[in-house]
């Protein structure tokens, strides 16, 4: 949907993921979108170099969030919120409504 603006649709998916869930990691996004993990990592790196996202290491996983110090963050998020309304309901269900509440360790699914 925003491919023309961002240059590719991976960036769009990453940004919507961060908008909806607040954070994300490369492997998780790769599984969700059935995309190669290196493609996701490459775009996350590009966004981080641009100051749009920031990351921290938790254990062995690098967690990405929007960079709260990005000067156009409010405007970018407002734009993404608007754009999110136009995502087909089926895509929202598949990609952006995953369970985020905790699940006790060892609990059978």
């Amino acid at each position, binding site marked *: 949907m925003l491919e023309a603006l961002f240059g590719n649709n991976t960036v769009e998916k990453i940004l919507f993921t961060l908008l909806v869930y607040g954070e994300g990691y490369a492997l998780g996004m790769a599984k969700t979108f059935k995309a190669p993990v290196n493609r996701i990592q490459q775009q996350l790196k590009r966004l981080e170099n641009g100051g749009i996202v920031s990351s921290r290491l938790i254990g062995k996983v690098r967690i990405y969030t929007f960079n709260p*110090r990005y000067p156009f963050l409010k405007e970018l998020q407002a734009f993404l919120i608007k754009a999110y309304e136009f995502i087909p309901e089926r895509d929202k269900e598949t990609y952006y409504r995953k369970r985020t509440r905790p699940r006790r360790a060892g609990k059978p699914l």
Partner: protein
Amino acid sequence: MKVDWEHIDIRELAAIVSEKLSENGIDAVLVGGACVSIYTKNKYLSSDLDFVTHAAIKEVAAAMSDLGFERKNSRHFIRKDCHFFIEFIAPPAAIGDEPIKNLNKLKTKFGKIILLTPTDTVKDRLAAYYHWNDPQALGQAIMVARGQKVNISEIKRWSAKEGHKEKCKAFLNRANFV
């Protein structure tokens, strides 16, 4: 002038890099921890120098290679015999969602450095404390505020705009401004 890269100090390195960039028509502003080092006379010693520039990274790389710095990855530069590394951060130069309006100029025997003012350096460090609860950044903000003339009312205004009045109070208390 011969440069002792192994023992160079951060202020000298900032000046040499700034001059080289300027010779190549590149404007760059020193931001981040290196400003803290300069304003605290190395009481806090940063290991990297962060510059913000609108120039293309290829142009920057050409200028940096004249100084013997090679591009390590994307925006980082290193020189084997120099213990500092240099990063060129994507523009714009901003603190929170506000562009940086005033810059400081320092003259050294190695050349001129364009850098954040002490007040903006405090705000820059406080931004890391506000958003990431980084205690080191708070400590650095306090060091600069105690050692330099800073505009406290501007820091209060900006902090309120960022939504961090309470954390600003904690900073002012610890820096003995209350």
